[in-house]
């Protein structure tokens, strides 16, 4: 036990001495959470649409007012002698509403009045949102503001995030990304450095066994991870307006386990690859790319093609993201999260044993 803590203490001395490393763990994650957390979102609330009114009547102006009243779209003026598609260059308009002549006459006659809505489809998701919003506006307009006469009415309830704020989705996701990147980065660097500078030989000749040596390192970087999470959680609460709903204990346990898991991952990488440059690349791949792409950070996992989707089951970030989102948004507590906690701990132990497997004999490789 004493040897483990001595090892941990030694790691801390080294981390505190390295200013670049400290900035990596304490400053950069906050920056990333602030930038990515609010920038990486798909839900666009104010989209410009251009309107060309060839009828120019009371009815058509009333109709355009229905679009003006929406807070998802805003109307940009566009000269009627220019092609509406030109506004799509440089995103001055995302869609064009074209009201043909005789719109008012058709409306007053009680016949159907066609209106064209051209959507810039180059960004498929935004196009979908614009079209959906326009259809909703039209539906409300056709109902005429009076009593809804549709035979079946869908009463839609948006659970867990009634304001449909995408920050509340991406904030926790980026929190997990930051947690998956920096502690393992430092851990792998510290471990690979010992291999590179051959100080590992001093460890080999000392009387510390491999398990204790590795555990000492892992404990140090687990603590680093926990320390990193605290300012991040504060930022989530203040800037992103998220607070714990329900029982926070699954989240707290998962955070400790996840810090252990990523620290073990870093130590394992460093033990397997005694080169700092290569170790950074592996951590960037495992910590950043896999977690960013395959854990449901921005885009739902269900959208990943099935040939690749199975990989996401092996990405540790996927389980932690679920627990974090549950703690901040759903609040369903232990029943839905205990298994994920177990998986995180299990994956961490696998990394630990893999690292131990390479270190076990404490001998210079022939």
């Amino acid at each position, binding site marked *: 036990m004493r040897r483990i803590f001595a090892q941990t203490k030694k790691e801390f001395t080294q981390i505190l001495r390295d200013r670049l490393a400290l900035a990596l763990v304490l400053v950069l994650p906050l920056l990333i959470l602030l930038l990515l957390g609010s920038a990486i979102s798909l839900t666009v609330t104010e989209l410009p649409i251009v309107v060309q009114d060839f009828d120019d009547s009371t009815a058509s102006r009333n109709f355009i007012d229905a679009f003006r009243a929406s807070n998802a779209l805003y109307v940009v003026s566009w000269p009627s002698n220019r092609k509406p598609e030109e506004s799509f260059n440089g995103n001055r308009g995302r869609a064009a509403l074209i009201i043909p002549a005789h719109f008012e006459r058709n409306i007053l006659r*009680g016949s159907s009045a066609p209106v064209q809505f051209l*959507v810039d489809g180059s960004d498929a998701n935004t196009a979908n949102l614009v079209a959906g919003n326009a259809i909703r506006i039209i539906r409300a307009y056709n109902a005429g503001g009076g009593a809804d006469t549709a035979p079946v009415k869908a009463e839609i309830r948006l659970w867990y995030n009634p304001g449909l704020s995408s920050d509340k989705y991406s904030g926790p996701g980026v929190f997990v990304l930051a947690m998956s990147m920096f502690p393992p980065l430092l851990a792998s660097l510290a471990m690979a450095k010992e291999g590179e500078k051959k100080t590992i030989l001093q460890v080999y000749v000392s009387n510390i066994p491999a398990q204790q040596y590795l555990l000492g390192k892992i404990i140090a970087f687990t603590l680093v991870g926990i320390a990193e999470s605290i300012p991040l959680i504060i930022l989530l609460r203040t800037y992103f307006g998220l607070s714990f709903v329900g029982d926070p204990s699954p989240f707290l346990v998962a955070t400790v386990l996840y810090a252990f898991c990523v620290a073990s991952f870093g130590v394992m990488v460093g033990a397997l690859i005694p080169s700092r440059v290569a170790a950074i690349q592996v951590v960037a791949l495992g910590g950043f790319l896999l977690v960013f792409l395959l854990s449901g950070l921005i885009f739902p996992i269900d959208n990943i093609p099935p040939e690749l989707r199975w990989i996401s089951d092996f990405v540790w970030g996927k389980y932690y993201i679920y627990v974090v989102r549950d703690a901040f948004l759903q609040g369903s507590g232990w029943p839905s999260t205990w298994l994920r906690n177990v998986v995180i701990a299990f994956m961490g132990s696998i990394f630990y044993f893999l690292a131990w497997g390479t270190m076990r004999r404490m001998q210079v490789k022939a």
Partner: protein
Amino acid sequence: MQNLTARVFNHRVAALIQKEFSQVRRDRRVALSLIVPPVLQLLLFGSVLNSKVENLRLGVMDDSRTPQSRELVAVLTDSRSFRLSGYYLSSKQLSDAIARGKIQAGVVIPYDYARTLQRGRQASVQFILNAMDANTATIARNYAEGVIATYGMGLRSSGLRANGRQNDSRGSSHHGQVDLQVSFLYNPGLVSSWFTVTGIFGLLCILNGSLVAAATMVREREAGTIEQLLMSPASTSEIIIAKITPLFFLLCLMALFAISLMRVVFHVPFHGSFLVVAGAAALCLLSGIGIGTFIATFTKSAEQAQLSSFFVNPPVASLSGALTPMEAMPHWMQPLAQFNPIYHFGVIARGSMLKGSGITTLWPHFLALLAFTVVLVSLSVWRFRKQLG
């Protein structure tokens, strides 16, 4: 000017360029790392990052258990947006399933659903969506409303609701219905990879360019051979030009490879001119090399250069509109993207490839890209010379 071009391409520079090329040839890993990871990333990002809302798991709690309620469920699950995941007996079970993520949406049909319909009154069903993912929830809400509205119209025209029709005719005598004809330009199938892949391409040009440039620039210093170069009669700008040329050449190969990948694998259309995209990509690569060289001048080892790029890359990548629409960013961040080469590249690539716009409409973005390239390259050359001097 003529004097300068003559100096640049004199024998000394040619010899130095040859030296850099043979170094690259000897170290196959550099060439490999220039081609393989970008290709893999393009493939992975393009196929994984998909925002399509399809096949959401729908749970049903049907208290009505009538042909009418079963028809509603069938209509909902017939659409591509939802698929039936299971029936639940109580609202507790349904909300548990949503909380556990087993289903993403739930529909609750009340016990008097069929009776209300037959009496000609408005029947309401509750539609619950897990809105944690705001984007999916927004689109799913639109789908659900649309499906139910169409279903309602079908009911009305089939005459099931006599009273309702009366209501309706009274309503429509006042004004006709607006018929919105939506058409999606440039991407009628709404393939989301077209957007992602064009953005990722710009991202790769900058990030890969900077990564490789930083590694190459730092290597000579790490090995200590930089002094030998300085002792040679070549001037510092000649050394830099010689260092950049083979990198630029290889990165251009990577870009060509990526463009053909976009064409063959993702079927991104190519409505505009190839030269526009290639020119913009070349400018992007040069700015990337500029960023990398700049980073390299501040660092002493390859490890430090890589770590420093962690400070540069995430902001550059996230404020670029490459993966997500620009308008989704907070307002105070949006102007920052104007200072991001990836943003301008994205506008050019999408404008040219998807929309077929030419240089006449895209020139402001070209100008911006050119300005960045000039500033970044000269800044890095200046830093580099200062360090060598």
